[in-house]
């Protein structure tokens, strides 16, 4: 299959093109140098569920930290320090909290790497002339065509949104 790309001068132009092409039932993806909120609405993208992963990991981290503290202070090696209780919830709070935070952060970071398909060394898009502007000043739109023979129609529809240029990229890696 082929991936057709079109570059637009501004975010507004891109958003406009997206609206048009979605109505025509294309599967779209956009590339922008900075987040464009309208784009998500135009693409009708679902909310990111990344936060659930982070939350679960955070809870787990905190629980593990508290359990661990109980384990080493009250169970594995109970030592009398200054007559303080072996299981001393008040004193366990800070580490529990910190570990919860740490786990959440690591979770969120790991999740974004996975969901945003990061840590890739190469992508066909990098081979597209001028695509570098996607991280600079350009706004790009990708149309994924199902059948090669409808290719022409797509080009026509794209051209109708008067992009700066149209390019073609290989299939996804």
């Amino acid at each position, binding site marked *: 299959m082929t991936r057709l790309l079109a570059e637009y001068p501004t975010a507004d132009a891109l958003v406009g093109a997206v609206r048009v092409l979605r109505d025509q039932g294309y599967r779209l993806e956009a590339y922008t140098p900075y987040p464009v909120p309208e784009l998500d609405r135009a693409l009708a993208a679902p909310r990111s569920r990344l936060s659930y992963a982070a939350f679960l990991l955070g809870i787990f981290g905190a629980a593990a930290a508290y359990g661990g503290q109980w384990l080493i202070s009250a169970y594995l*090696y109970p*030592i*009398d*320090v*200054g*007559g*303080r*209780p072996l299981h001393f919830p008040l004193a366990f709070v800070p580490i529990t909290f910190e570990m919860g935070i740490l786990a959440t952060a690591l979770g969120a970071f790991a999740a974004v790497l996975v969901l945003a398909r990061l840590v890739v060394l190469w992508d066909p898009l990098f081979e597209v002339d001028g695509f570098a502007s996607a991280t600079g000043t350009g706004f790009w739109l990708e149309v994924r065509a199902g059948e090669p023979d409808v290719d022409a129609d797509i080009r026509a529809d794209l051209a109708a949104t008067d992009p700066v240029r149209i390019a073609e990229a290989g299939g996804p890696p």
Partner: protein
Amino acid sequence: MSSPSPSLAEPLTDVLTRVEIRRRDALKLLGAGIALAKAGCMQAPGEEVLPYAHKMPELSPGAPLWYATSIVLDGYATGVVVESHEGRPTKIEGNPAHPASLGGTSAIQQASILDLYDPDRARVVELAGMPSSWARLAEQLGALPPGPLWLVLPPQSSPLVAGLIARIREGHPGTRVVYHAPLGRGAAYRGAVHAFGAPLEVQLDLTRADVVVALDADLLGAMHGAVRWARDFAARRHLDAPTDTPVRLYAIEPMVTPTGSLADHRLAAPARDVLPVATALLSELGRRGRPVPPLPPVAASVGLPPERLRWVRAVADDLIAHAGRSAVVVGDRQPAACHALGHWINAAVGALGATVRLTAAALDEPLGDATLADLAAAARAGQIGTAAVLDCNPVYASPPALAIEAALRAVPLTVHATPQVDETSRACQWTAPLAHYLEAWGDARALDGTVSFVQPLIRPLYGSPSTVEILAALAGLRGKTGRALLREPWRPRLAAAGPAFDQAFERAWTAALGDGFLAGTAAPALPATPTAALPAALVAELDRVLAPPADDRLELALAGSPAVHDGRFADNAWLQELPQPMTSLTWSNALLVSPRLADRLDLADGTVVRIRSGDRTLLAPALRVPGHADGSVTLELGYGRRAPDQPIADGVGVDGFALLGADGALIVPAVDLAATGQRRRLARTQLELDDHGRDLALAARLDDYRRDPDFTREHRGPLPSLLPVPERTGLQWAMTIDTTICTGCSACVIACQAENNVPVVGADGVRRGRAMHWLRIDRYVARERVVHQPMLCQHCEMAPCEYVCPVYATSHSPDGLNEMTYNRCVGTRFCSNNCPYKVRRFNWFHYNRPETTAALQHNPDVTVRDRGVMEKCTYCVQRIRGAEIQARMERRDVRPGEVVTACQQACPTGAIQFGALGHADTPMVKWRQQPRAYAVLHDLGTRPRTMYLAAIRNPNPALDNDEDEP
């Protein structure tokens, strides 16, 4: 070094060969030394020595043995028991059966063990700086050059030495003996001659005293016999209940001594004003109808200032009120006249035969034979053939006017036998290393005359001869060991002649060495009464000394140092770093001045003062001492040594002997002070003597205590707490300390150091606040009243140090000990920050130096701490565990009083009591149930296991009205 005199000149080759020999020996010695250091133990003495009879277990590796021997200082013996690990002596304890100790020890006695292993000890016999041998010296001593022989040695009470000196006198007619002791008691004996016509010894029985008056007498601290007297005094001073009436103590003295700090009424006065006070006291007694001799007219001329007169009158009344149960004690440095009057005062209040007994003096020739001055004169006149200086350092410790060094150089043959190469060695041709008392055989008498034995615990590390062996060589007894020399005279005395004589003697000998002394050999009390009239000599002396001083110039009172005595212990690092009672000064002496005088002369602590007495001057740093007399300044002797071979002692402090008059009197009547620009940073462990109104060291007057026994109520008992109170079962260790009887003598500090391998940090370390003592003695001075508070780990049940340690390096044992796990410590020092008592000590550097011989003293039962870890008092946990193991082996529980901590064992007054809370009938428990018991910083809720008993004073109502709460 003096060049050898012509008579000793010899071919160089000889010297060289001898050097060869010495070098080989030296190598052997070195090898041995290494072997010892490696194995941590050394061969048992080749000769039989006998263990302490009552404590002797079978010798089993790891189990220490205890041997009885005696420490002799200035001629007076104190029985001690020495702990020995596989033949390596490590710790000195008092001999509970010995009358001069009763189990207690002084700081100096505790520290004497370190001298045995001092790396700076003299090791080689030297002639004119060239290595020689003991054999050659003995040879030389056997063949003396023409001319009389002079011996210089410390005062002697040894029957053996007396015998040897007699033989020497036979062999060498015209032999003179100088008994050299800068802090000697000649005046006391001359005073006795005034009163009784004979140099009698005063024996105090403080257990029967209700009132004691100390006339410049530190009878609880520095005086010979203080260890015993402190125990007796404490027995009468400690209260079990408010109804008890403790002994009342009066003191008059310039510098605050341990005795003065305990006194109920302390009169701060220059030492020269003590005699007038004694005179006034005697005449007051006469005015009250007591039998006193007629006093010379000069006595009447004594005009005392009103407040002193008031003091004297109150004392007189009190002495009479307790006639027969009171005593007056005169200090050694006071003139003979004062001692004499003291005897008449005691006679007048019926003390003689009751609280004061008189016996024959323990010393041989107590009045001496010749003096250093005679020696100097004779030497200059070329009338001395040989001078043998044994175990003393007259070149340093003598009046500069005598020029002893020059005198000795003028003598054809001079021999110096000394533990360390010192000032005198440099003036003598021969230098012989002298055996430490733990390496030597001998005998001596205690103050009360009890014969005590000195037996070695170890073969001389450097093959050094003992004083006895050197005297024997002079007496022509060659090749006899110290043991043989000692046994010979005692054979007839220990056993009756007869068929089974040998067995009988051996049995008696065994028992005697086992006990360390011969029971029942104390000198019998003599029915002595002073003459009815003052002898002419005394009157003359009174006329001379009682004449009021021309002007009110400052007096300089010289005193022995509580740490280094007359300088003979100056190379002992423990004693150098011992915080001095009252000043907490270490690694130096200082000119001690009263705050008022300091303000007048504008002296701050450390300001260097030029002291001028006649044509002699000395620069010394000043130090303010609250309670010091205004008309007097005090300088402690024994510092300012000039001994390059004693690196620890050399150049530390200033040399008070430089100001000593030719007569050697320690009270220098008139000196001038002038502040110089310089400033010296003194190394002190406690900088703040004021308690800032905080109730830390509680004290009360007896009547207040009786009125309100519960006055410490806010400083004990349960406190509300959010945390559950820990429940700990089984033996629970604890300590109780009675500040009423703590004299601050600091024996416990050294005992702790010796027992627990506590390192020294040096003067700079102390200045930076890094002293390592596990046990320190805090002093708080309020209105010139001192309370000593031994401060050590309080072993809090809710220890604040423990819960802040991130690695469990300090935690609580089930039996209530606050434990340090050195190996686990990473050194965050949070525990020290969080310890409100500041008793934790940190190893800032690698203090422990295993490569020196001093490491041989280490107690193998106590971990030697490494750099970077925290340490502190453990309640001598090694002793606790030792006792528990013993008990387990014998299938029994630990007995009450079985565990004794090092500080408790050393304490002369028994102010420190340790034990288990469960053992209800021990003093430790009974004491803490007294109403005056309290915990320091109780309101912090740390629940310390160490409790204190408030200091109770027993002031005389007649003098007390103007005094406010102490």
